[in-house]
């Protein structure tokens, strides 16, 4: 347990640092409506590092970082300059163009540099799990300096058009260039957008939005790290999915906090759920009658969760055949595993296997794999025949379920009494405008 905590301590610290700076910039990104700017700037930085590598500089050397930074600043200047076009061409389109051109140009450069692809990859695909103290020792002060520096300068440059825009993109570019190398593109996007979106959902003022974003972002990261460990899932991908789930929870919580709407929300959700459920069941009923031998997603899912369902439509003989085939399949699988283990062990231990023995093992493995597929075919065939024979019966059960779902009593809306207080923070402002109007 102590080993695990030691293993996850630095990733957790990295998450705190990354949420800290990205939630802050994320609020600005949402306000400016330039959602994918981080991807474009990271790709431009990768292009710069690749160009440096092609010119003979060490991949992780100072020159490569300077090139990456210089390219990022050029992209920042470009984005700041084209902000004026946004009335005609949305800035997201310009960001998309910068992204694809930088990605394509990097590919062309890579073609001329042996092992060049790796250097692009190193910039774009960090791994939060293996982040080291050496990296954090530089990244944390950098994020603090850029965050505070941006806040200080932005106040002084407020309203000075191009310079103000350039400052934002340049500061953000410096952060993203570093953070994507630590955590990877997907995770940095999640750190940037999701905590900020949760903050914006649940607060109106910037300081409160930032506080909520920080708390939600850090809590979600810790949950994600725990889920990644418990479920043996890839850490970066798990964190991104956990952030997605956190946004969904925050969205539901937002719906429940809307004034006079909690009952209506439940009622609409319940009605929608019933209709969707009934439609799926009715479609399953039609599908099994029309094509009983093809995939039946709902029935397959139900059987996976409750294997006993099979005995409802398969007779004893069919069940015996299927069980026998399953037993054989497992036995062949076990034999194949033993052979593979034997071959792997004899690579270094005991008398080495000669070529003929290796070929024999390969041939046995092929045979076992084919036999396993044969047994799987038997299980499927027996099941499909039973489904075909009882398709009307299964279809009728699905139809009955669909009808009962539709006929189930609806959840009544719980309308608050007149004069009851609205949830905190969601009161209609004094000027009469809704939050969305501001």
């Amino acid at each position, binding site marked *: 347990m102590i080993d*695990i905590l030691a293993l996850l301590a630095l990733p957790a610290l990295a998450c705190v640092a990354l949420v800290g700076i990205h939630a802050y910039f994320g609020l600005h990104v949402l306000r400016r409506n330039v959602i994918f700017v981080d991807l474009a700037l990271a790709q431009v930085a990768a292009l710069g590092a690749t160009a440096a590598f092609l010119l003979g500089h060490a991949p992780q050397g100072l020159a490569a970082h300077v090139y990456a930074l210089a390219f990022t600043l050029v992209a920042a200047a470009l984005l700041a300059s084209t902000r004026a076009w946004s009335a005609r061409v949305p800035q997201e389109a310009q960001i998309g163009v910068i992204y694809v051109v930088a990605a394509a140009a990097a590919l062309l450069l890579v073609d001329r540099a042996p092992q060049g*692809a790796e250097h692009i990859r190193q910039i774009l695909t960090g*791994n939060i799990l293996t982040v080291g103290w050496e990296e954090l020792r530089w990244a944390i002060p950098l994020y603090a300096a850029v965050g505070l520096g941006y806040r200080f300068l932005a106040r002084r440059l407020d309203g000075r058009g191009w310079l103000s825009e350039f400052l934002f993109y340049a500061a953000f570019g410096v952060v993203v260039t570093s953070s994507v190398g630590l955590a990877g593109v997907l995770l940095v996007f999640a750190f940037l957008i999701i905590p900020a979106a949760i903050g914006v959902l649940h607060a109106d003022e910037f300081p409160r939005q930032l506080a909520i974003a920080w708390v939600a972002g850090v809590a979600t990261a810790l949950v994600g790290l725990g889920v990644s460990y418990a479920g043996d899932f890839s850490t970066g991908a798990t964190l991104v999915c956990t952030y997605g789930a956190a946004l969904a929870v925050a969205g539901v919580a937002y719906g429940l906090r809307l004034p006079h709407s909690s009952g209506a929300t439940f009622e609409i959700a319940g009605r929608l759920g019933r209709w969707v459920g009934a439609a799926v069941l009715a479609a399953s009923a039609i599908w099994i009658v029309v094509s009983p031998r093809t995939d039946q997603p709902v029935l397959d899912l139900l059987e996976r969760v409750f294997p006993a369902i099979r005995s409802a439509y398969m007779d004893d003989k069919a069940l015996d055949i299927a069980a026998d085939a399953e037993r054989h399949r497992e036995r062949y699988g076990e034999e194949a595993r033993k052979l593979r283990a034997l071959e792997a062990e004899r690579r270094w231990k005991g008398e080495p296997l000669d*070529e003929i023995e290796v070929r024999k093992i*390969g041939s046995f493995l092929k045979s076992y794999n084919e036999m396993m597929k044969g047994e799987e075919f038997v299980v499927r065939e027996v099941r499909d025949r039973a489904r075909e024979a009882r398709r009307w019966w299964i279809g009728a059960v699905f139809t009955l379920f669909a009808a009962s779902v539709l006929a189930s009593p609806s959840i009544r809306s719980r309308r608050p009494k007149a004069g009851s207080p609205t949830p905190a923070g969601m009161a209609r402002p004094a000027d009469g405008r809704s939050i969305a109007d501001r």
Partner: protein
Amino acid sequence: MQIGSRPIALSGDRDDRRVTPAKAGAQCLALLACAFILPAIAQLKIVATTAEMHSLASAVGGEAIAVSHLIPAGEDAESFQPRPQDLARIRAARAVLRVGVDYDLWLERLLRQAPGVVVIDASTDVALLDVRAGGVGPGDGHAHGRGNPHYWLDPANAEAITGTILEALAALDPPNARRYEANRLAFLARLDAKMAQWSSALRGAGALIAYHDTWPYFARRFRLRFVGFIETRPGIAPSAAHLADLLRIAKEEKVRAIVREPHQPPRDAAFLAERTGARVAVLASGVGAVREAVDYISLIDYNVRALAP
């Protein structure tokens, strides 16, 4: 044109009987063309998919064949994307030499557009390891259906690979068959002389962890023990639990080196090495992946040196 005591006149003009410097230059160029271009035209054109196959084909074909390869040295062969000129190269060739075992699946599309080109599958006579059948399943840790494709990393397999190449070249160019056979035997003799040296250098290399399961053939030949892999599914970063497991195994088994290839991310290998006291060994799975690996023998030579205790 009359050839005798008079200077050779290449054209019919009256005043062109003297050999001027320009004419002499033109004649030299013509002779050079005969000396160099004609043999090149006579050479059998072979396109290999990878640089190591290129090297093995050159070892058999020698001067009688002109070999090129499609995947730039050092590039990850499994994520290679062909370019327009690759199709032109294949169309101009008599034969394509491929790794097979689902390693260069991208070649299929190109071959459909180049009918008539002979395909030489170098894996034909190799005893494959980690064999699977019927494609890739969800429990499969490696993305290759027929077996692990990195078979050239066992230098003993060079005999089977060059045998396949020899057979194909002899069929395509029967007059040079003996020459190909002699080249192959000379190459195998050079390889044989190295084998004992390599085996003794790698004795006592200890337990190893690799980034990707690239090394079963190399391990089998040199009795190396790989106790784990960082990347259990191609392209998917390890989980915290898997990394914790690797750290435990590394400590229990006293892992001496974490093996990665130049195109694989250095972070994960460095992370494990730092926490276990093992060193990171950068091995090359193909010719040109590192500067020292200029041909097949120097590739194995480099890997042995990089891993030797």
